[in-house]
């Protein structure tokens, strides 16, 4: 049996494969930094530089002039922040009801939520666009925030967590003491759900920050999110590759920063979601 244990330990080949995979994963991002810190002429040389150069600040200031990246960063922060708070709240409320409360239509409603996870929201963009035209929301951030709050995954994720982690006896005891549902929610459910809420918040923030199709339709260069600004940048009127890469770097950095700080939790969240989903 000891042979078995050592067999399950990674050997040299295992590490070689993993290091290759990590290099492939990280290189394009590293290359973005290299290209963003060089001039176009340097990139066009027969033997391009493979180390970061001195022109990063110049390229960053050109991209801030040419595309509204500064405003885009702020807008993305507002949009992703609002979507994260709203989604976590709505999902925890609904997830709790589905996990622990008995009511008529529970199975059917939960079924509808799960089924809708299969349907890409992109297919509803035309009526959604007509709706925001009607409401005069084109180019306004709420046009991106409100549809972004609908997360069937979030409801399902919170339900799965609470089914396992919230003991029925705790709710029963609170009920016997005469606590209302609202009180049970705030003083019992939320404290227990907090770790799952944090993970859902992280995943939601990343998804919201990176969302592409709907913001491109609903917003324009006057009121862009980062992804809308990147679409403008890649739209052909900026030809300086190093400037485009500087913009890409700037737009990617915040989410990479979150990832660097909380990567372990994000990995955990994705793996949990997988086992339960």
């Amino acid at each position: 049996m000891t042979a078995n244990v050592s067999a399950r330990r990674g050997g040299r080949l295992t590490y070689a494969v993993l290091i290759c995979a990590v290099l492939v994963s990280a290189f394009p991002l590293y290359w973005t930094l290299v290209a963003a810190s060089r001039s176009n002429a340097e990139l066009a040389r027969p033997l391009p530089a493979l180390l970061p150069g001195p022109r990063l600040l110049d390229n960053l200031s050109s991209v801030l002039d040419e595309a509204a990246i500064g405003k885009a960063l702020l807008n993305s922060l507002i949009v992703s922040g609002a979507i994260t708070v709203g989604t976590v709240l709505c999902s925890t409320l609904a997830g709790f009801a589905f996990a622990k409360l008995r009511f008529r239509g529970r199975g059917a409603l939960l079924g509808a939520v799960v089924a809708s996870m299969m349907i890409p929201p992109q297919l509803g963009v035309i009526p959604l666009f007509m709706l925001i035209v009607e409401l005069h929301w084109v180019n306004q951030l709420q046009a991106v925030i409100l549809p972004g709050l609908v997360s069937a995954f979030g409801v399902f994720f919170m339900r799965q967590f609470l089914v396992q982690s919230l003991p029925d006896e705790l709710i029963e005891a609170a009920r016997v003491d005469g606590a209302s549902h609202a009180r049970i929610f705030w003083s019992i459910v939320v404290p227990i759900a907090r770790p799952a809420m944090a993970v859902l918040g992280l995943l939601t923030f990343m998804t919201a920050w990176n969302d592409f199709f709907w913001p491109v339709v609903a917003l324009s260069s006057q009121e862009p999110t980062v992804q809308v600004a990147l679409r403008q940048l890649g739209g052909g009127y900026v030809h300086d590759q190093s400037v485009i890469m500087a913009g890409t770097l700037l737009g990617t950095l915040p989410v990479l920063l979150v990832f660097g700080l909380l990567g372990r939790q994000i990995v955990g969240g994705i793996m949990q979601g997988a086992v339960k989903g």
Partner: protein
Amino acid sequence: MPSAEPLSPQAPPAPATAPKPPEPPSRRRGRPASLSPYAFLVPFFTLFAAFGIFPLLYTAYVSLYRAELQTPGELEWRGLGNYTALFTDPFFWTALRNTFTIGVLSTVPQLLMALGLAHVLNYRLRARTFFRTALLLPYATSVAAASLIFAQLFGHDFGLINRLLDLVGIHPVDWQNGTAASQVAVSTIVVWRWTGYNALIYLAGMQTIPAELYEAAEVDGASRWRQFLHVTLPGLRPTIVFTSIVSTIGATQLFGEPLLFEGSVSGGISHQYQTLGLYLYEQGWGFFHLGRAAAIAWVMFLLIVVLVGANAWAARRRSRKEAGR
């Protein structure tokens, strides 16, 4: 609000005291008067109805009308006109074909490599968290950023990939204008972004397979490869079905990668890598035909239903065959 509160605010004050005595205490305990279960669902389901269900159903409705971007409020009945226009447009068929080939080129290598990586990650490793996190970096990068970066790497004259090919004596590839080459390039973006993510999903699945199964296989003298085939793969089947369904749905609506590869809505000069998602966007926001775009969305929806159905059917048939063995 479908609340079950026994006392409504409109109730006149005098009779409110009269029906009180018969109220049994058990009812009070089961239903505290403050919030009914439905109240917890109201925020989510209001948004879900307004921004999830309504747009989807209304898409089918709009697809039967002439609706133009300049006058989105005015609908003019067209019957199946949008659909016949679609089916007689050669670019629709090009987009459908491209969506399929790019879908295969991106999904198959991505899932196979993810499976291999998950197998490797499942060993006892030093710096476990580092490897897992690093492999997830591409997932954290947005579609837009990844597409711009790869557009640069695949550049014809100065792109790093052609330079590397040149170094080993291969002629520069026309990643933009060649049909196969451009589709490979666009698929590469998808593969790069999603392989690590799927590897973690597979890893999570592998970790639920009991270690005793491997020990028993070892006792029976099964090689590593046979253990992978006969223990890992069967144990992972639900996860494999799940990831292939999710990837199929993603591939059907591919949009950002082909849009930003060169920045044009036509997906290349001769539409060589225009996908259905991009074609929808071109019809709706390039040519202002919202009705036509809605018809495309509905065709994509049906396509997804058929593909997911086929996937689930194949999985069920497979497991029934296993059970009968």
